[in-house]
């Protein structure tokens, strides 16, 4: 078992290096001048000064070397467009916001999604099932930006008097909790539907298993069967799906962050790509891919514990 964990963990290092390299190549191929911010052209001498300052006049392998060194010394370099900030600053300022938003969205998704899935599975094909599945599917299929704008429109503008919810902004302090609600719901909506469906499917499958039938035949109370056997076994796929999902949530939804004016890492990342801020793009990509890869690793390890077949390197 330990060998499996170690081997799997060691593989993440070349993967992360590969991610850095591929992103580096991608950003170079996109071209575009990070220093030209408006239609106004940058005078040649100033362009040269800026390139020299940010090592862009060096050959590509030297630049790549800087990035790799930066990753391992935790100094990700200066931002090309936000001149008085380094990438570390950017991450320190914005990552906690995205982390909190992602966690809250996940909590919403779990708190609403799992019970919904359980109820519709246990009451399959009744009106309860149909209603909740319609609700869930509507949420899943409508685009993110639509749900976000509708939430603002109804809860923050039309019914402002009753809800007292602000239309935008994010206050990371505890008394700013009102600003967290709508964005978390908007972001957590899709994962919520995902959980509901997975849990429902998983419970339906479990209910068909022989041992459930045995338990019923033995005369156990339905409540105990559900609580003890069904839930425990059905929730596993949902829980293991949660880890990489959390990774994606934290990567931040650009759309939710823009519509709600949240200073998170998703919005910053998109702006850095469109603005060709190489160091910020590289830094955030590294951070996010580490999160996602580590999440995947944890899931694989969890599966390794739960299902011995996956430990076999031959499969």
């Amino acid at each position, binding site marked *: 078992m330990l060998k499996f964990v170690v081997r799997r963990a060691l*593989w993440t290092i070349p993967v992360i290096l*590969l991610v850095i390299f591929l992103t580096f190549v991608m950003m170079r191929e996109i071209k575009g001048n990070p220093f030209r911010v408006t239609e106004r052209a940058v005078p040649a001498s100033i362009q040269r000064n800026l390139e020299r300052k940010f090592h862009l006049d060096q050959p590509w392998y030297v630049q790549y070397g800087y990035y790799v060194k930066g990753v391992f010394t935790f100094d990700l370099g200066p931002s090309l467009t936000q001149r008085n900030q380094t990438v570390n600053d950017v991450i320190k300022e914005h990552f906690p916001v995205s982390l909190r938003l992602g966690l809250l969205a996940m909590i919403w998704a779990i708190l609403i999604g799992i019970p919904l899935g359980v109820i519709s599975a246990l009451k399959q094909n009744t009106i309860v099932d149909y209603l909740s599945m319609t609700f869930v599917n509507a949420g899943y299929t409508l685009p993110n*930006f639509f749900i976000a*704008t509708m939430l603002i*429109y109804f809860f923050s503008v039309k019914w402002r008097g009753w809800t007292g919810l602000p239309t935008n902004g994010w206050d990371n302090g505890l008394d700013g909790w009102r600003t967290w609600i709508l964005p978390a719901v908007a972001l957590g909506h899709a994962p919520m539907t995902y959980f509901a469906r997975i849990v429902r499917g998983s419970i339906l499958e479990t209910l068909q298993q022989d041992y459930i039938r045995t338990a019923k035949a033995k005369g156990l109370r339905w409540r105990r069967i559900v609580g003890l056997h069904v839930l425990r076994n059905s929730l596993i796929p949902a829980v293991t799906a949660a880890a990489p999902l959390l990774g994606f949530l934290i990567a931040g939804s650009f759309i939710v962050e823009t519509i709600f004016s949240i200073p998170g890492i998703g919005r910053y990342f998109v702006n850095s790509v469109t603005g060709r801020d190489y160091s910020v793009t590289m830094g955030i990509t590294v951070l996010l891919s580490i999160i996602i890869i580590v999440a*995947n690793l944890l899931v694989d390890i969890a599966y390794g514990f739960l299902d011995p077949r996956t430990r076999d390197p031959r499969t």
Partner: protein
Amino acid sequence: MSVQRGLGPASVTERRREFEAALGRTAEARSQEAGVALERASLWRDALYRFAANRAALVASLAFLVALGYAYITPWVDSADPYFVDFSEQYRPLSWAHPFGTDQFGRDLFVRNALGARVSIEIGFAATLAIMGVGILYGAISGFLGGWVDNVMMRFLDALYGLPYLPFAILTIVVLGGQATFWTMVVALTVASWFTTARVMRGQMITLKENDYVRAAQALGARWYRIVFWHLLPNTLGLIIVFVFLELPGVILGEAFLSFIGLGINPPKASLGSLAQDGYAAFQTHPYMIAIPSLAIGWLILSAFFIADGLRDALDPRTRG
């Protein structure tokens, strides 16, 4: 001759006749490939019956056809000039003349949404098929060959998972000439979304290659690509079809996302995503401009999803009989 199930012949002679007929049939089947042909005939007919019995899937298929009808018939019947600009017709509310209202240029939105749906559906299918192509190829090869090749290919896939979606899309668009046309969007969406298919395909391959007929084919000297393409892939056809309808929503949403960011299709052509982006700015005063394309996207995705569910139930060997 279809195999009858359940009821058997009454008498011994009939049973013997049945037995001999069955022998003859299996001999015939052996001369074909590993029983695939026989399985296939009953599998598809079976699946069709089960699919039709699934009410939700039927309704969804109907809904999908309605959407296709709207998208393709409407502009044909009610022609719309994409270069039409008449500011006096701006922002007209919903009416008989304009069932979905008009936009900021006075263009009728009923027709524009149909045109947009057309583009979205076409991009969706094109990208999905491309995703299938790339994903299946990669996954099948990786799964079948196994060993260190599989390991390396899967780790590479892990790395690709870690890459951010947006630079991928921009890069494809840039490399293909700079503006987002129909084909650049298709390629961009494909490049960024084929990973899951590859993974699933690989998993399937790993399970399937343990089958006896594969060993038999290998013993007979068949090369690996023949086994993969001629034997294994047809067995996964059902799964592939299900996957088409599962990936379609992701692609349509991806197109909407890219349009929302501004990387959408060139005006005056429209896709549902670009129409939604147009409507976003006006959502407080004219909410129908964003609601209608969003609901259209939802409609397409919902029906695709139930069709996929229905197909999966119909084709899944575990829940059969």
